[in-house]
């Protein structure tokens, strides 16, 4: 069974601080996605990484896919209250024929205090 473990589970920081959250697995994924979910809303896709070692930047957010495609990290620089939310990672394994199911982590709940 493929599993994605996210850490930390909860994180509370002050505005302006930097942070990194992690998404780890013992399985290899063809791609990995990061989503942010705000209270009362559905998850919203932030980025998809597909190549081992790939780094993508989205303003103050930096996403990295591990060389072995088993893990990923999300780094936020100078966090702002608007970054508050649940950050979810989801891995795709397309080796099993037509399987398009994503494997989801439980998320990191981030609170950025003004």
């Amino acid at each position, binding site marked *: 069974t493929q599993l994605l473990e996210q850490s930390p589970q909860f994180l509370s920081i002050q505005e302006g601080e930097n942070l990194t959250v992690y998404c780890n697995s013992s399985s290899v994924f063809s791609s990995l996605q990061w989503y942010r979910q705000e209270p009362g809303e*559905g998850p919203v*896709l932030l980025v998809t990484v597909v190549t081992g070692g790939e780094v993508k930047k989205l303003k103050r957010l930096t996403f990295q896919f591990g060389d072995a495609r088993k893990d990923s990290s999300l780094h936020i620089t100078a966090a702002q209250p608007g970054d508050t939310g649940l950050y979810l990672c*989801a891995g*795709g394994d397309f080796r099993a024929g037509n399987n398009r199911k994503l494997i989801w982590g439980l998320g990191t709940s981030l609170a950025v205090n003004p």
Partner: protein
Amino acid sequence: DARVTQTPRHKVTEMGQEVTMRCQPILGHNTVFWYRQTMMQGLELLAYFRNRAPLDDSGMPKDRFSAEMPDATLATLKIQPSEPRDSAVYFCASGYGKNTEAFFGQGTRLTVV
């Protein structure tokens, strides 16, 4: 602004009652997912469809849950009879082609008392 639309947003029902949740995927998307989210289990995939055909519903309790796509603009998830343990937020998401990026609706918060 294309988005996935789910109705109702909130539903409170008594145990044993039938519950129907509806989803309108983004126009042009050919893949529809139904997820359930709880604090303990996170997001669980219940079923997904491509081109209206069910591809995988292994995550769905077959005895009480059913999912259908009567047409390309409507997906439904039914629970009959509902039980308190079904209380959760149910999300519909849609996507297209081989890309599994999912665009989520706002969810239906179901409470079964």
